[in-house]
């Protein structure tokens, strides 16, 4: 009764109450929406954090092959070490036969856990379906549940030595294109001794060769390169000739020489003409070597020629050498 009485006395109260109720309902709806968005955002943030941690673990996961052998049943026997800070879970083993064409790719399921610093052996021995064929080249993959892939070549490829390796198709860097020697003398129509050639003679003797660079890098021929000329008649002649820039007659035989500071560079697959002459250094330059026999009075039919080229490869300071031995034939003009 009191309530009705009060109610009946305050006509404005009921409208306010209804309005306030709806306002509260609207506020509750807004709060519910706010709580929902907070929850959804929290879940999203937690997922992002989880995946960030997963990515971090993935980056830190490290697995190294220790050895790969085959069992008596021609299955793989892989030993790996977990060198990372977390436990590794191997889930797939991939074996690719690279020898067959097209390659075959087989995956076998794994379920092996490896703790940090621990070594797991016998991987593949029970899980593989196919057999390893001797003589085939395989690529082996180990896949972890974090998505990391560790790859190994079996049998392991031999590591290339860093030292210089000659090209397989040649015995050395150079091959000889041709060889000849020229001899001019207005005073000595017969073969002469090199020592008999003087500055006043109109004669000189020079050996010309053409060599090709068959290597894949530029080769620099040094001035210490030389040639030995061994004549077989009587076994008496074995003069040594040195690489020179040119031998020419211009009033008197003139020699201009190379030295190591003035080398000859031959680019890959290019050829270079080289000249050799009997010479030696003296105080004012270069002169003919005295007392060295070019070839004997009795002209032989053949001679053994040994060209010794001293060079560096591709700008390397390491000095290399190659001999080009061959038998020369004297031809009548």
């Amino acid at each position: 009764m009191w309530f009705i009485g009060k109610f009946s006395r305050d006509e404005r109260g009921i409208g306010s109450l209804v309005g306030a109720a709806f306002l509260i309902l609207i506020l509750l709806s807004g709060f519910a929406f706010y709580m929902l968005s907070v929850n959804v955002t929290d879940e999203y943030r937690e997922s992002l954090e989880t995946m960030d941690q997963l990515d971090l673990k993935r980056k830190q996961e490290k697995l190294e092959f220790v050895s790969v052998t085959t069992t008596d049943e021609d299955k793989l026997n892989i030993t790996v070490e977990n060198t990372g800070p977390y436990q590794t879970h191997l889930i797939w083993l991939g074996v690719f036969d690279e020898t067959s064409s097209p390659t075959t790719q087989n995956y076998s399921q794994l379920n092996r856990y490896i703790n940090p610093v621990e070594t797991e052996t016998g991987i593949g021995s029970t899980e593989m379906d196919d057999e390893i064929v001797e003589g085939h080249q395989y690529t082996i993959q180990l896949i972890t549940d974090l998505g990391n892939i560790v790859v190994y070549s079996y049998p392991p490829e031999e590591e290339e030595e860093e030292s210089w390796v000659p090209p397989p198709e040649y015995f050395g860097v150079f091959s000889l294109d041709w060889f000849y020697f020229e001899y001019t003398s207005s005073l000595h129509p017969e073969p002469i001794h090199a020592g008999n050639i003087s500055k006043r003679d109109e004669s000189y003797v020079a050996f010309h060769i053409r060599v090709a660079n068959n290597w894949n890098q530029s080769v620099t021929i040094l001035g210490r390169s030389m040639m030995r000329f061994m004549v077989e008649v009587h076994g008496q002649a074995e003069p040594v000739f040195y690489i020179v820039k040119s031998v020419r007659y211009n009033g008197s035989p003139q020699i201009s020489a190379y030295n190591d500071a003035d080398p000859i560079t031959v680019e890959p697959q290019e050829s270079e003409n080289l000249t050799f002459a009997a010479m030696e250094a003296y105080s004012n330059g270069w002169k003919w070597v005295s007392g060295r026999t070019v070839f004997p009075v009795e002209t032989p039919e053949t001679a053994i020629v040994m060209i010794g080229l001293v060079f560096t490869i591709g700008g390397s300071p390491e000095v290399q050498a190659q001999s080009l031995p061959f038998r020369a034939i004297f031809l009548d003009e």
Partner: protein
Amino acid sequence: MLGSFWRDKRGISEVIASLILILVVSAAGVILYTYSLNTFSSTGSSFQLRTGLREEQARERLVITAVWWDTSDLLNVTVLNYGKIDLVIDTVYIDGTRVSEYSDGRGEVVRTGELISVKFTSPVPIEDEQTYEIIVVSERGSKNVVYWEV
């Protein structure tokens, strides 16, 4: 008629007036509440949906483990799902060109930790000793790129 209405001091009863007032306020409250409820609900649903999709994409991880070629134009890309959620391969691109002919693997659900082979005909001719960019895209938009040397 109108003059007599204004002159007539007897009005409608207080009870009826109160009821009318309550009805008006209630109606206005219902309309406002319904509108706000709809607004909050649709905005909340949209937000929840967008965030949910983003969350699912964030939990998705895939990696191409191998590429196989039959020496013609048929390619087979093996993909690992290492995420926390199942995924579906939707599209493959070779050197930026979308693959249109799939023979296997596309649209199939790949459970977490599983491999799937997606087989398709390359939209660009494959040549020896060339390198190709292969992109695999999931339905949620996650992708993995590999540079495959033939």
